[in-house]
């Protein structure tokens, strides 16, 4: 069963909230309102309509789901996932209004390396029902013809999206009981930007300043949904974790304390040892990585190494080790040694994914890998399937496959081309973001210069709506 969880109402959608008394919140709401006043065609849409914003709310409000619960026949997830049945055969009393949508695109990247030319994705109630070159689309289904590449929304299993104050505690090295989802603010600008960059799911993680930063959470960048409230235990074995203002100030102290905690195995440490809670370990330099792998072998855990830029120089200990490397994405100024090491690691066939700082960093890091000869399929897999697996939501997002969430991005060209850009972003089958301008590279070379076209037509020019405009 999939974990679909509600965020606390206070943290979910500003729109559904009673007006709070605190000045800070008020200022924040006011600024958001201004955003919403922008032209919907050109603005980043920070929200989808409130009624659809959270599965949890839908779950409580929608009568058909309540009816399902009353029958005790299953959960909302089962209902959404179940083989599609004609409306008449739905459980009695449930208004089985299935919302269908078909997207057709020039190229569909399934995420696992396969592509379908002129493919169709059939979406039912926010989930993918079918994908392929010839999909049986029920008559009357709204169909959108998209020009470009349709790919799964990117899944980044580590991010710096939250403000630093929410991710770092300078006074203590160990915060095993902290859960970062409490700091999740769905309406934040950073999330909207990630969404606009084609990132639909991220792991919220603490900084590497705390040895044990707490428990991470997996969220969608649109709709305020928490997919997983307890996704990983975030550890740090990097320089930032040894701070001379609190214990520990040394790698010896850090490792000795972690060894003690894991040996005692209480709380989250026990969950890690039993395999129910994966770990994300911040380990930048090669000795951090070596230390993490050694401690993991001693204490019986494996997970993802965050920021291990030189992992490609450490294949003697990392090859087929069971660890995954999550690369930092600092932007264009990655030095040559790191570029080569990243490429060596990517070419070794060992799993890797990316951390999210900002859109440019992510795009440049992936482009550097292509430049160094890594196959686009491998990089796309890192951004989708592997990202989702590391995030712990591998069966749910990161692929265009039956049963997966319909988190899709229409790219103007190949998703990894630096000149491509996301045109439309779908989350749970809803178009939650449309690019305000069309990327230069995709403007038809013929016809008239782009500047002579009215601005209002640019955004829509490449989607021909044959059905409902979503």
């Amino acid at each position, binding site marked *: 069963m999939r974990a679909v969880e509600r965020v606390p109402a206070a943290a979910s959608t500003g729109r559904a909230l009673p007006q709070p008394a605190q000045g800070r919140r008020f200022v924040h709401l006011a600024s958001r309102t201004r955003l919403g006043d922008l032209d919907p065609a050109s603005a980043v849409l920070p929200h989808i309509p409130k009624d659809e914003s959270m599965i949890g709310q839908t779950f409580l409000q929608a009568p058909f789901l309540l009816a399902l619960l009353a029958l005790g026949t299953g959960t909302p997830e089962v209902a959404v996932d179940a083989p599609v049945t004609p409306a008449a055969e739905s459980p009695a009393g449930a208004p089985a209004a299935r919302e269908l949508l078909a997207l057709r695109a020039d190229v569909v990247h399934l995420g696992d390396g396969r592509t379908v030319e002129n493919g169709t994705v059939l979406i039912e109630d926010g989930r993918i029902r079918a994908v392929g070159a010839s999909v049986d689309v029920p008559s009357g289904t709204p169909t959108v013809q998209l020009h470009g590449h349709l790919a799964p929304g990117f899944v980044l299993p580590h991010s710096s999206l939250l403000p630093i104050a929410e991710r770092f505690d300078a006074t203590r090295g160990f915060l095993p009981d902290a859960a970062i989802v409490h700091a999740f603010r769905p309406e934040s600008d950073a999330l909207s930007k990630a969404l606009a960059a084609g990132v639909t799911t991220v792991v919220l993680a603490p900084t590497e300043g705390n040895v044990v930063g707490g428990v991470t959470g997996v969220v969608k960048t649109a709709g305020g949904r928490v997919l997983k409230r307890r996704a990983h235990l975030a550890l740090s074995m990097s320089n930032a974790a040894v701070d001379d203002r609190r214990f*520990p100030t040394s790698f010896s102290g*850090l490792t000795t304390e972690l060894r003690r905690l894991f040996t005692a195995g209480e709380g989250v440490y026990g969950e890690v040892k039993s395999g129910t809670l994966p770990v994300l370990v911040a380990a930048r330099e*090669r*000795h951090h990585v*070596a*230390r993490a792998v050694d401690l993991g072998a001693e204490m019986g855990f494996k997970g993802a190494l965050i920021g291990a830029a030189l992992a490609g120089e450490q294949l*003697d*200990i990392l090859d087929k080790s069971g660890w995954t490397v999550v690369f930092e994405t600092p932007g264009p100024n990655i030095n040559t040694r790191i570029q080569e090491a990243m490429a060596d690691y990517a070419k070794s066939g060992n799993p890797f994914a990316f951390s999210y700082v900002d859109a440019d960093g992510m795009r440049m890091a992936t482009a550097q890998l292509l430049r160094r000869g890594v196959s686009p399929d491998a990089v796309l897999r890192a951004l989708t399937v592997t990202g989702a697996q590391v995030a712990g939501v591998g069966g749910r997002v990161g692929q265009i496959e039956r049963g997966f969430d319909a988190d899709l991005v229409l790219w103007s060209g190949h998703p990894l081309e630096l000149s491509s850009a996301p045109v439309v972003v779908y989350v749970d089958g809803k178009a939650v973001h449309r690019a305000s301008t069309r990327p230069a590279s995709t403007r038809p070379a013929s016809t008239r210069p782009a500047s002579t076209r009215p601005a209002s037509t640019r955004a829509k020019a490449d989607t021909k709506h044959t059905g409902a405009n979503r």
Partner: protein
Amino acid sequence: MRTLLRTTAVATTLAIGLCTPAVRAQNNAPKAPAAEKSRTWTVHADQIFTANGAAIEGGFISVVDGKIAAIGPIPSRDRDKEGVLRVAAITPGLIDLSPNIDLSQNSVEQSDEITPHLRVADALDPYSLSFDRALRSGVTTVLCSPPDENVIGGLSVVVKTGGPGSIAKRTVKADAVLRGSFGSQPSRRNSPAFGRSRDFYNRRPTTRMGVEWEWRKAFYDAVVARQDAEQSFPGVEQLHAVLDGKLPLMVQAGPTQDVRTAIFLKEEFAIPNLILDQASEAWKEPDLLVRSGAAVVLPPFTWNGRVGFDRGFHAWNTALLLEESGVVFAFSGRDATDRDERLSVQPGYAMRGGLSFESALRAVTITPARMLGIENRVGSLEVGKDADLVLWSGRPFDFTSDVVGVMLDGDLVVDPRAAQ
């Protein structure tokens, strides 16, 4: 059937031999042809110094899978054998008990002065270039210790200077000694008892007297904790192991006053096994040393004789004096001015001070191995031991001789043929 089995075995060996080097060659710049990564060699030398008895004139060493498989005079039929490495002289890989292995600033646990339970193995960087420097100069085994900023820094580890990028995999002996420091190093840079503290902690001590007090208090507390479990504290097990003789205690003690303080501590708490590191002025107290049975690790020789944090005086004939008194000693390369030849030149300097070649050789090979109890693996050239060899261009420790080749666990890290 027998033939079949043998063929299979050969095929498997070939397959392994072909696969492993291919993977390695991808990751590292190829240092030798792939076939030579098999850690199997035959080396001929004009002289082999085993550090375990007489030298072998015109000897060979056969290395199989990283271990010494045979050693002895070259059989006459093999004299012109092909595919053999030929060098002037071979000694065992050198062992440094006080090496210059870089530790980052994040190696000092400032939250306490007494941290016997911390392991320096958790702070080492297997990729540190200082390991590589040591290895290329002939040092194949090192005892890495916590920095001497804390009074009792923690547990040292014996590691090989090369091998996989994992300290655990390079370890020869974990928790080999408990390391601490006397003198002024553990009392420097600490916050004063008054005024503004630099750090979160007001660290102690700030004087030599305070350092001694911390030492005695730590062992006193350990003795108390034996009687009363409620008085236990982190690291008490390691202190008990020292008191019981299960764990040697190694302390930095350069000047005479620190040598004395350390020996008085040993006698007060009946510590069975004490190693005095950087004990440049040990020669001033030979009787006390003999009485206590403590072993000594000598610092490198310097141009003016002053050496170490407290600038103790290290005379050229220090080693000779200790030898004549019957004190067990080893050389070390810590803080030597030459970054690339730290340990390998120290025996030559000691010989200038009158020490015999054999004693000088033992002080960088078998003696340090015995001090740590690792002589079953390293320290001398004997069948079954690790194939850690130093290949020399002439008689070892002569000023005109050089280290031209280094083999670590059968890997030819420095190829003597490249020098020819």
